[in-house]
């Protein structure tokens, strides 16, 4: 066997190993990953927003409030994620649970938020299983299913790891493989 053949074989092996590792670590749907409930609302900028319009994208949906300390610390990381992965099919959506819109508008401008924010209500919160503390975030795959739930403040690196894993999956669904549903707390 020539050196070139050996090198080519080694390259193929490395590539196969890389693909196998990526597939194994990518979030996959399971019996626990439910379809995200759809909703229609108007965002702070007056635009209509329907979650179903984002099917085909990876969505990080965050329930938060302007006065919530851990939420405030997460927002810059979400802005950075949106900037970094927005063109690759990723979208952050914020659902503020403030009592009124005024402080949310101020916060939106002050933190240079680059993703849509809507005002949530109890009905919307309950459709996601109840939001009885903040922040809570859901990571939704291109297929519209919830792959991860994050309760409480979450490290930017955890969000990024999971977003990258879901962005790496090309298909709309991938039901084979190991079960996957991350619930961080």
């Amino acid at each position, binding site marked *: 066997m020539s050196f070139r053949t050996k090198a080519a074989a080694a390259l193929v092996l490395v590539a196969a190993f890389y693909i196998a590792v990526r597939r194994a670590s990518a979030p996959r749907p399971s019996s626990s990953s439910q379809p995200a409930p759809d909703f229609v609302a108007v965002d702070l900028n007056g635009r209509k927003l329907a979650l179903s319009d984002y099917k085909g994208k990876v969505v990080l949906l965050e329930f938060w409030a302007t*006065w919530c300390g*851990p939420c405030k610390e997460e927002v810059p990381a979400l802005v950075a994620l949106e900037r970094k992965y927005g063109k690759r099919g990723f979208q952050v959506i914020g659902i503020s649970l*403030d009592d009124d819109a005024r402080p949310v508008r101020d916060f939106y401008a002050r933190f240079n938020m680059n993703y849509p924010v809507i005002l949530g*209500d*109890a009905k919307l919160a309950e459709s996601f299983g*109840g939001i009885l*503390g*903040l922040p809570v975030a859901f990571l939704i795959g291109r297929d519209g299913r919830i792959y991860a739930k994050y309760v*409480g403040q979450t490290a930017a690196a955890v969000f990024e790891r999971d977003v990258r894993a879901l962005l790496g999956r090309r298909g709309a669904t991938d039901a084979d493989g190991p079960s996957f549903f991350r619930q961080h707390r």
Partner: protein
Amino acid sequence: MRAHLKMVAVAITLAAAVLAMEAHVHSGNTGKNAEPALIQPAELAKLLLSHKGKKPLLIQVGFRVLYEQAHIPGSEYIGPASDDKALSRLRARVKALPRRVFIVLYCGCCPWKSCPNVKPAYASLHAMGFKNVKALWLAHNFGADWVDKGYPTVKGR
């Protein structure tokens, strides 16, 4: 001998002053930065379920969507007390009450250590002269530390 007695008296006075300060700190009554006196969820649930004893005035100083999804029966919604408007509502609500009334404040919006609402509410009541105020200790949030424990909960406005 006289000088010796004076020194002992000074030492006793100093010790008494230190003890008084300590007691003041632990009573949770240190003004604006007061650490609230606490009541544990199990203790409050027991008190609410008991047929004996006077029930406290329960005030929720978290956010409306949380209150509408789940709150302690009989509790009143005031709003996030990190906001001056909510603090004004709180003061207006209790203004006419006797200062000895038992009040329990709760929020559960976020983990206790980062809750921005309970401490301003507590400090405000204390500044008004209310001495029998306790804050419900919710370590993680209202869902994990009250609802999930099966303590009394109702929904609605």
